[in-house]
């Protein structure tokens, strides 16, 4: 069970704005990336640690979260470094959806109207096993699409690197 406040994203939150182009060539590092994450999304997030200092645990978004077709992993590591523990959206851009799975950060496909039923600052509670998200501030509830077994296994291992490293070390096939 995870509990914390959420930031409700506008439409068209793109990978480009989550990590702006001057940082694409920087190292992939949660701590470093979290300082500038979301800096292109909103004026209030543009200063160092602008997003991180808000202390959000969740993001609630509409369609195509983190779209724009960037494969850079800074997007996911930046969010993780800033304390985000799950992102709920109607849909996700596939590259960042994939990166999130590989890092074990839950990108959860939720009810279509969830972003309309939440406001920035609302307190949410997420029960991953049941796939239920409660908005404690408003007393409402949303459901999510359960993660595929592979996705859960990768998350349990602490990400794809650990998952594969273990298999290689044990001489197990990757299948």
């Amino acid at each position, binding site marked *: 069970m995870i509990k914390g406040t959420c930031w409700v994203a506008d*439409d*068209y939150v*793109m990978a*480009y*704005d989550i990590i*702006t*182009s001057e940082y*694409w*060539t920087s*190292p*992939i590092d949660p701590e470093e990336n979290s300082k500038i994450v979301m800096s*292109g999304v909103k004026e209030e997030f543009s200063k160092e640690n602008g997003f991180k200092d808000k202390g959000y645990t969740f993001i609630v978004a509409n*369609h*195509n979260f983190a*779209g*724009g*077709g*960037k*494969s*850079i*992993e800074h997007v996911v590591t930046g969010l993780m470094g800033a304390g985000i523990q799950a992102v709920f959206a109607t*849909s*996700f*851009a*596939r*590259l960042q959806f*994939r*990166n999130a799975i*590989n*890092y074990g950060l839950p990108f959860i496909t939720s009810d279509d109207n969830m972003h309309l039923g939440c406001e920035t600052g609302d307190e949410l509670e997420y029960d991953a096993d049941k796939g239920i998200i409660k908005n404690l501030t408003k007393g409402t509830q949303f459901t999510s699409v359960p993660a*595929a077994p*592979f996705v859960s296994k990768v998350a349990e291992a602490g*990400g*794809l*690197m650990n998952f*594969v*490293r273990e298999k*290689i*070390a044990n001489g197990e096939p*990757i*299948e």
Partner: protein
Amino acid sequence: MGMTITEKIMARSSGRDKVTPGELVWTDIHSVMTMDFLGRQCFDKFRSLGKTEVFDKDKVICVSDHLVPPPNQRFANMLNEWREVVKQHDITHFYDLGRQGIAHQIMVEQGHVLPGTISIGTDSHANTYGAVGAMGNAIGVTDAAVAMATGKAWFRIPKSVKFNVTGKWQPWVMAKDLSLHIMGMMHWNGHLLYKALEFTGPAISSLSMAGRMTLCNMTVDLGAKNGIVAPDVVTERYLRNRTNDKWHFVKSDEDAEYDMVYDIDISDLAPTIALPGKLDDTVTIDKLIGQKFNKAFVGTCTNGRLEDIATMAEIMKDKQVHRDVNMILVPASQTVYLEALQAGHLETLIKAGVAIDTPSCASCAGLHTGVAGDGDIVLSAGNRNMTGRMGSRNAKVYLTSPSVVAASAIRGEVTDPRTFDI
């Protein structure tokens, strides 16, 4: 029930007779590409998996494209580290400055992508590989590291969407216009997310390999997993001198199942332009005639090929770029550069007042070579127009085809190449 071409490739690559959409599989990878600014991190991660040798030294392709030639010391230092790490792993195919090109152009042009197989790359436009009937897929450095170690990657089998494209291409209308037309028609936000896009029909059969690369390249910008054109005689002719590997004419079964099928007649397709900010905010050229701009750019993995340059040269021959416009051409690879030189196109373009730079991703990644400044209005044959993409967040980028950029650069305002006096 039969399978689509993408399903067949994924079934074959995962050692199965059949796969169905939604299934999660580990597949064999034919080749994995990484490039200068992410490559070192791929190798670092690869070694952290407990491996010292990559799964196949001939199948890990390394390219310098985003940072070359280095415009500053930071990039120069990054490139030095990159060269060191590639050397350390004894990689066979390293396309460094001097032999460079944009990674996706290199992958296809140098025969590192094969019909009926899967190739991945750490840059989003790896979808380009679908042009030769391969499954091309963009991945992050984690997936690249895993593939370098194991020769494998995980995938969810996507649902397929078919675009049946008929009709005859009008003069000066290009594959880019079809890409942007589909972008406007489908919108960026949803319908095509995670889907495998298959392009078929007479208007696709008549497309050159360059056009097919443009079309598949931009499927990532539609949110799709991959874009693919089944191999045919054009593919066979293209690959003949590029690879000795054996491949098959894999294609979709007649009774394959599609999530959606769209019919598009391109006979009256007009040059199409994406307005600044959003890729799916497209208009036909008549809505923008006369729009002023001060920078013109042709290049990138979308439109920096010989055919694109030949089209520009044909339009710009014996004419002059307008005095209020700076125009830059960056060929997609050294091979393209040389071919354009030998064909005389570069001479034509230099005489017309076009600046030509050495192959790289150039200003498309906003990193160097003609980046946009505050207040600039750019007419670009690249692939992205988001705020800040080409440099300043206070610049505007219109996306269009090389023929529109060429005709417009002469007039100094958006011009329809179909009515331009050539």
